[in-house]
């Protein structure tokens, strides 16, 4: 009897499905799929998960406001584990097989360059890189792709802002002997070089006495830490981030590393600060994302909304992804189309009002990268607000020195 019921139920269900199928298909066809790929597992999964969280909030907000061109939006999330070949495959699959009409590339730089080439090859899809900070991705005209944009902080911007702050700090504290410890891939190498270049410009007597290049996701930093201790620098600059930074700090604490040298990093995010059990005070740190910087009601409201929804604090990657959707939203309205070339034309030079701007706005420059986002440097404290005494960076100076750097690199 039960078997008969099962068959009947199945037949009824199947019939209903057949009848409903065209409607379902139509509803699905109307939905605008946006592909998002990132690192969603491993020691730096925080990059991907905090990006995804922000995008899901944007999905709710945009759909509540009527979607894009009257169509509800839906994200398709994929985990590339940060592997370039996997990232390239996923980007193609998202467009060709999954039917995504827009892309959010939330990869770290290791994979973003691979995605960039896929976007260039496809030619017919708009893509916003939301997490790659390696400057050459958009600064180098040979690498820049016509329909790909970066809505993220950029290494060279941070390098100028950070170098000015750190040079002042180093002069005040008489810190001349420095060491570096950064992840061994494009972002770590390029951005460390940029920091050093500008740092030497502002503080010519600085001396780099040792450097360490641990692998991304390396479980043990002991030999790196002991090497740094042996070299006896007065200060250490590091671009480690997420789980790597947490492990480095925990292992550094074992050696009392932070009592032996000043540490400076632009990569301290809220959840990392919260996850590090014994956060040393006085690390010189960029703000990445802070609810209190810029200290505006809109910024505080966004940070609190994120915290309420996810029971966790947003990261730098969260605001960048949220901002990317603001850019898409405004560009689609302006272009009244999803056509990649039309969107590219609309995005170029676009200015959006946003809580994350230094003056409440952020601009997409004609070299496909954003300027005007909030950059500040201060020092860590073990309790909230985690970073205090924040000094705001001067965007005029950043752009002036970025232009010089671009000329040196023969990008312009």
């Amino acid at each position, binding site marked *: 009897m039960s078997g008969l019921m099962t068959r009947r139920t199945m037949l009824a269900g199947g019939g209903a499905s057949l009848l409903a199928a065209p409607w379902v298909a139509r509803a699905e066809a109307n939905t605008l799929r946006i592909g998002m790929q990132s690192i969603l597992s491993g020691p730096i*999964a925080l990059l991907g998960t905090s990006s995804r969280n922000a995008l899901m909030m944007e999905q709710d907000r945009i759909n509540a406001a009527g979607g894009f061109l009257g169509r509800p939006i839906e994200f398709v999330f994929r985990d590339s584990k940060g592997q370039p070949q996997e990232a390239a495959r996923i980007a193609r699959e998202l467009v060709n097989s999954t039917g995504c009409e827009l892309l959010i590339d939330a990869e770290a730089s290791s994979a973003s360059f691979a995605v960039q080439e896929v976007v260039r090859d496809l030619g017919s899809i708009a893509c916003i890189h939301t997490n790659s900070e390696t400057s050459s991705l958009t600064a180098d005209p040979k690498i820049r792709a016509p329909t790909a944009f970066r809505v993220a902080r950029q290494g060279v911007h941070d390098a100028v802002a950070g170098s000015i702050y750190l040079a002042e700090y180093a002069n005040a504290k008489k810190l001349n002997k420095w060491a570096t410890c950064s992840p061994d891939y494009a972002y770590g190498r390029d951005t460390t070089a940029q920091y050093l270049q500008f740092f030497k410009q502002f503080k010519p007597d600085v001396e780099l006495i040792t450097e360490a290049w641990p692998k991304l996701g390396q479980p043990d930093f002991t030999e790196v830490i002991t090497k740094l201790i042996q070299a006896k620098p007065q200060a250490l600059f590091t671009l480690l981030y997420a789980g790597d930074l*947490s492990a480095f700090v925990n292992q550094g604490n074992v050696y009392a590393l932070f009592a032996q040298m000043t540490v400076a990093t632009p990569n301290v995010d809220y959840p990392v600060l919260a996850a590090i059990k014994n956060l040393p005070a006085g690390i010189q740190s960029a703000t990445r994302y802070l609810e209190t910087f810029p200290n505006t009601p809109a910024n505080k409201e966004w940070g609190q909304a994120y915290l309420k929804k996810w029971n966790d604090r947003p990261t730098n990657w969260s605001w960048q992804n949220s901002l990317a959707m603001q850019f898409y939203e405004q560009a689609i309205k302006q272009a009244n189309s999803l056509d990649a070339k039309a969107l590219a034309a609309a995005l170029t030079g676009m200015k959006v009002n946003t809580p994350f701007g230094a003056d409440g706005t952020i601009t997409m420059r004609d070299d496909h990268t954003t300027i005007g986002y909030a950059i500040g440097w201060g020092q860590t404290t073990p309790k909230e607000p985690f970073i205090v005494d924040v000094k705001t960076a001067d965007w005029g100076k950043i752009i002036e020195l970025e232009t010089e750097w671009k000329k040196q690199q023969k990008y312009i």
Partner: protein
Amino acid sequence: MDLDALGACLTTSACVVTQATSGLIVGMLLFLVAAGVTLIFGVLKIVNFAHGTFYMLGGYVAYSALAATDSYTLAVLAGALSMALFGVLFERALISRVYGSNVLMQLLICYAVVLIFDDLVKIVWGPEFHAMGMPLAFQVPPLFIAGGVVPPFYAVLIGIAALIAIVLGLGLSMTRLGKTVRAAAINPQMVSALGVNTTLLFAIVFAVGGGLAGLAGALAAPVRSLSPGMGFSILIESFIVTVIGGMGSIAGALVSALLIGMVRGFGTIAFPKFTDGLIYIVMIAVLLVRPQGLFGRRS
């Protein structure tokens, strides 16, 4: 390449002590994992590609146990014992079905276990990294020996690992069980024909191997980030250790783990941009001179 820096380091006791301690801690934790790999291979001729999963789960179990009990000792015991039990279940439920099968079948089963447990860890503990934090008892300043820095926590870890190496070595050479395990490694059919319960023996081997990997994961948890998939990198290094030491040799695993640790410790000073590459060069050099590994038997 900075050979001057290495020369300067080797002539100062402070640098030698600090870097040697660094090499010892990396090497000893690696030994705990690699000992299981080599023991299982030696006895069962199974290359356990899922061994990194034991290390990862040991760390996560210890993390949760610490949160529940507030005792690091209990957390470490929980990590080690749970993985010993998991080793038995893994062997009985899966590996025992592929003894003597094609190595690809064994690889497939191990890889499936890796993927399944990476995803389960994501579901249970979340995809982001976790940090256990240093136990209160070890939140003390480092010791200074001959001018070198030696963290008390690492000194204890090295001591525990060294003790286990001694117990394992003596256990295999002096006890009846150890002798049986060694006999099974050479001729399992004969051991079985003599009436030894090889089913139990194989399960014990997996329990010891799994327990050691779980212990390493739990011991390292206060200083290393916990994240899904973290077993992979240690697995690769464990295989390098096993190959250099000689497949199936515990003494070889110890010597080669310490060798890798020292290459890391001192290599990072001389070759800061090529430390990982250096390990593979050591492996190639050893295999060119002794293809069976340092302590391996020629087949």
